[in-house]
């Protein structure tokens, strides 16, 4: 059996594992955009704060890792609510550019706050998870774990959106904002719930990313831009499209990294994005009509 095929398979599997995490990250951003019609430019910085939370709770204060994760998810969820109440809600009627600038300002604020509070050193959990060896392939447990948790998180959100009344209202409000009043829905409450949910997804993502990356004040730049590209490629506000785009991107990065260097993987992904913006500017899964 030619050795290249094993590498190819390994890259494909790693692509799927990365895709799961990217899909989770973009889901939170998509949810907020679909419901509130606002792009959280500072979304990746919320994740950065969650990663610091994990670092301090687990490595410095020696909390059990699951308890640390639970608190981080809740904490970043609360940050999402704060962001909405303090920054977004007063600007809901304002021009979209003002909302973008405001959340962009929060991005710089969070980066600077992290630099002042935590310094610019790279930190990590110091956790050494084993690497799974199977059929000549190497798959790291941290990636498998991140993938499994991301999938669980997405299924939980899916069930919430499908089964609960609040979930139905979240889907409905993205389709017709004005008539929610007629259903007896207080849109402001739905916005707060959605912000909490978007923040909690960022919190979950931070627990997973801290297994894969070191945390520093500018770590948001590593996955922030790609998250936006995924959301745009999938069609902003389209949850299914976002998930598909996440896997497409992850495979491009992973396979590009296999044949050339990791950096070329990103180049492929971005070139693909630019081409797609010409071919299908409304996104991969654009809705008809």
């Amino acid at each position: 059996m030619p050795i290249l095929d094993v590498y190819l398979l390994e890259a494909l599997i790693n692509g799927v594992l990365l895709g799961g995490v990217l899909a989770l990250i973009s889901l939170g951003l998509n949810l907020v955009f679909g419901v509130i019609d606002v792009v959280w430019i500072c979304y990746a910085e919320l994740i950065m704060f969650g990663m610091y939370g994990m670092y301090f709770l687990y490595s410095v204060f020696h909390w059990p890792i699951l308890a640390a994760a639970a608190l981080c998810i809740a904490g970043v969820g609360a940050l999402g609510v704060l962001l909405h109440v303090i920054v977004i809600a007063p600007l809901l009627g304002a021009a979209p550019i003002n909302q973008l600038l405001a959340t962009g300002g929060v991005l710089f604020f969070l980066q600077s706050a992290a630099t002042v509070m935590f310094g610019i050193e790279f930190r990590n959990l110091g956790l050494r998870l084993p690497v799974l060896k199977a059929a000549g392939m190497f798959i790291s447990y941290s990636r498998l774990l991140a993938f499994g948790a991301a999938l669980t998180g997405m299924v939980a959100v899916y069930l919430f959106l499908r089964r609960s009344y609040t979930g139905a209202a979240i889907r409905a409000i993205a389709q017709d904002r004005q008539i929610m009043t007629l259903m007896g829905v207080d849109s402001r409450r739905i916005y707060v719930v959605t912000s909490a949910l978007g923040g909690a997804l960022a919190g979950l993502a931070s627990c997973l990313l801290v297994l894969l990356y070191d945390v520093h004040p500018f770590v948001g730049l590593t996955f922030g831009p790609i998250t936006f590209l995924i959301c745009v490629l999938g069609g902003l506000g389209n949850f299914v499209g976002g998930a598909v785009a996440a896997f497409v991107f992850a495979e491009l990065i992973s396979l590009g990294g296999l044949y050339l260097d990791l950096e070329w993987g990103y180049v492929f992904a971005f070139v693909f994005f630019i081409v797609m913006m010409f071919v299908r500017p409304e996104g991969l899964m654009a809705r008809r009509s």
Partner: protein
Amino acid sequence: MLALRSVRAGYGSFQALFDVSLDVRAGEAVAVIGPNGAGKTTLMRVISGLIRPTAGSIAMEGTDLLATPGHRIVALGIAHVPESRRLFPRMTVEDNLKMGGFLPAARPKYRQRLDFVFELFPRLRERRRQLAGTMSGGEQQMCAIGRALMSDPKLLLLDEPSAGLAPVVVEQVFELVKRIRAGGINVLIVEQNVQQVLRVVDRAYLLKAGSIRAAGTAAVLLATETLREAYLGV
């Protein structure tokens, strides 16, 4: 039951309603008729809280609607079927109906209300898993009315339910209004289809250029000069 007194409303500097007073009494079906642009839709929106009047008062069974937040008005028993239906197009029929029963008070009665709506519209039961936006206009109108009925309302506001529907379907819609009434739900209906709507209501108001020009029983209104004038301009 519902009482509007000298209501004024508009959009920005444009005034759409001038001192409109109107009543729906318990057990009644009432129509508001009038030409295009008379302010009929504005009137409905003012009642359900989608827009707020600039002057006047609106009360539902003694509760001041102007002091009630928009999303609480449906809890007082007022359900509004908006102009051009406004279903959630990418949600299933059943999810649309679920949104109609969003009120905490309506949730325990969900099954019962769903059976009631499906009995009224057997077609919706067949299509419960279909996306609402993919149905025909008539089916969508049924779904929109069904959605409003899910909240177990005392008063149903219907805004041009016959608009854009085939004549046969229009017949069905008016037939339905009769049945809803017979079921003990008050109806306030806005229509351009004057002849037909006057056959299913007790009383009617003629709204023209934002003010009430005539009011009375359906029979009287059908005969008045004002009505002919409003529509034919003679």
